[in-house]
């Protein structure tokens, strides 16, 4: 068992694409870190550098105390679960799981014991003689997991392992992976672009954008105190609303541009008249009475999801005001054309710099 350290890790592909620009992070022993970010932000690249499938252009990666930059994938004692599972199609499930152990000259009875144990944990016992082609997607996923765990590696690497499964199975496998990882206590890096998966699985998140880590932290901390407007918009579903605004001259709140709405917020750190970007999560906008309302949204689209109802609308003002999404209780009836008065607690008003997107405290 070992932790994992990135220091100043960069990747430039031979064709000049700069995929990762300097990642510094450390993963504790037994921790599950989820790397999340939009497509093309360099998540897979980072993971593949840990695996040894891509050379590290600059910086250093350590597994435990060992610097692994120069080591072959085989010598890093890691196991990886691929998005397409990468099972060997010409081998049985048993042989797929035993392959890595055989290559390491593990004694035969030890191989049998470990594969049997993994098969039991993953409910693959009846499938050991089958070929991958004769398995369902979920079963293949399990075999891929089994192949990783029999090796008893220092680090598990997962590259979007659930993205080929249907929604139900994805939720189920997500729980299984979490349970398995906790019981084995193996340090894990898990790449996904699904923020729900990221929130539920992670001990800590690394939110990546354009090759840099925008924020590293525990899921709820990231949700509550997003470091940048990008993180704020990426984590949380439905996504945060962003409204351009200026800090009120009185220093007690912000004025939403073009609408005259004023929100109370903690703006002590900002000089008056300063332009800001206000972030409001749909779930933090609460219905209020007409006279206590801070915002009034004119609803133009309603999505009733059962438990919740999402109301999309605009803040009326001069011209077409900014768009706003509100999450309301499912029992509450809203119709297109309604105007819903809303309030929001000052704690839930996030302020960002409109230029670089950084959080303003």
């Amino acid at each position: 068992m070992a932790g994992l350290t990135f220091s100043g890790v960069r990747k430039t592909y031979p064709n000049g694409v700069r995929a990762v620009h300097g990642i510094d992070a450390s993963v504790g022993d037994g921790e599950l870190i989820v790397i999340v970010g939009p497509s093309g932000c360099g998540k897979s690249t980072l993971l593949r550098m840990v695996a040894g499938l891509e050379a590290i252009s600059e910086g250093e990666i350590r597994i435990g105390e060992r610097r692994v930059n120069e080591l072959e994938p085989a010598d890093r004692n890691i196991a990886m679960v691929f998005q397409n599972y990468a099972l060997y199609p010409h081998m049985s499930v048993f042989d797929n799981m035993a392959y890595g152990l055989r290559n390491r000259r593990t004694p035969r009875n030890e191989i049998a014991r470990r594969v049997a144990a993994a098969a039991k944990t993953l409910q693959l016992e009846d499938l050991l003689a089958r070929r991958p082609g004769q398995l369902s997607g979920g079963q293949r996923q399990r075999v891929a997991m089994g192949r990783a765990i029999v090796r008893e590696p220092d680090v598990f690497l997962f590259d979007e392992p659930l993205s080929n499964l249907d929604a139900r199975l994805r939720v189920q496998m997500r729980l299984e992976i979490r349970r398995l990882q906790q019981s084995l206590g193996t340090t894990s890096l898990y790449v996904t672009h699904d923020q729900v998966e990221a929130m539920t699985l992670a001990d800590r998140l690394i939110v990546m954008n354009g090759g840099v880590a925008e924020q590293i932290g525990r899921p709820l901390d990231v949700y509550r105190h997003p470091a940048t407007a990008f993180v704020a918009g990426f984590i949380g579903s439905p996504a945060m609303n962003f409204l351009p605004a200026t800090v009120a001259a009185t220093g007690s709140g912000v004025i939403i541009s073009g609408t005259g709405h004023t929100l109370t917020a903690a703006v002590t750190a900002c000089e008056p008249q300063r332009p800001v970007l206000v972030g409001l999560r749909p779930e933090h906008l609460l219905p209020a009475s007409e006279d206590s309302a801070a915002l009034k949204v004119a609803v133009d689209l309603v999505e009733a999801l059962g438990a919740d109802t999402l109301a999309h609308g605009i803040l009326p003002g001069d011209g077409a005001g900014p768009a706003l999404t509100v999450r309301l209780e499912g029992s509450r009836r809203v119709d297109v054309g309604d105007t819903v008065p809303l309030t929001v607690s000052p704690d839930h008003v996030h302020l960002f710099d409109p230029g670089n997107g950084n959080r303003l405290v």
Partner: protein
Amino acid sequence: MEKRVVFSGRWVPVLLLAPQVTITLVFFIWPASQALYQSVLLEDAFGLSRKFVWLDNFRILFADPLYLDSFGRTAFFSSVTAALSLGLALVLAVMADRVIKGTALYRTFLIWPYAVAPAVAGVLWFFMFNPSIGTLTYLLRFLGYQWNHYLNGTDAMALIILAASWKQVSYNFLFFLAGLQAIPRSLVEAAAIDGAGPFKRFRTIIFPLLSPTTFFLLVVNIVYAFFDTFGIVHAITSGGPAQATTILVYKVYSDGFIGLDLGGSAAQSVILMAVVIALTVFQFRYIERKVAY
């Protein structure tokens, strides 16, 4: 879903099929039936008289030590040619699969030999290894080897094997390369993480996944060596010295057109036909089932 075009009239489909059917009839069915017919006849060299002799031609063939020798020689020639051209093509394809820069150029050069007609390929090798003026013979002499495929049967056999496999390498290369590129990269990566070095990866992952391609090519190459190498043998050795390179397909020609034993030659081509049909049936029956993983 089945896609099927329905023609309203009867003439359009007939017209569309006609060229293919005509070609098959004129160039395959008719000569093949002629061969079948001739193989049971005894005919004099000038075609003035013929006699129906049942299977005598075949009986004579299988009693003829020269013919049986030629059978063995052909088996040797085909298997060595197939092995050589497959092995070489596989090595080249594995290397080409790794090349990143200049791939197109590299591949183009490797594909060229396939466009060379067998006789031309034969002439090419004939000159390179010509005992008196050949460049390679000259080099071999420096190495202390007196090359002479006019006198030495082993040299002659080696030369036609070389020429025949050289011509087939391109074809095999293309198929192997396509086969290699169809193997998902992540499989090889998974094997690398699983602790398999390059050779082990090749032996345990890549080669088994290529086996359908390899099997297909093996049959194609044996058929090629059996039937398509006439031009090479004719241009380089004309079957000599002392019949050392008279493989079956060449013997059909030399017995029929030089020896003027038309019945015997026809019987030989019937046997060759049977061999190719058997190989093809074997290929079709097994390629889908046995080798598929």
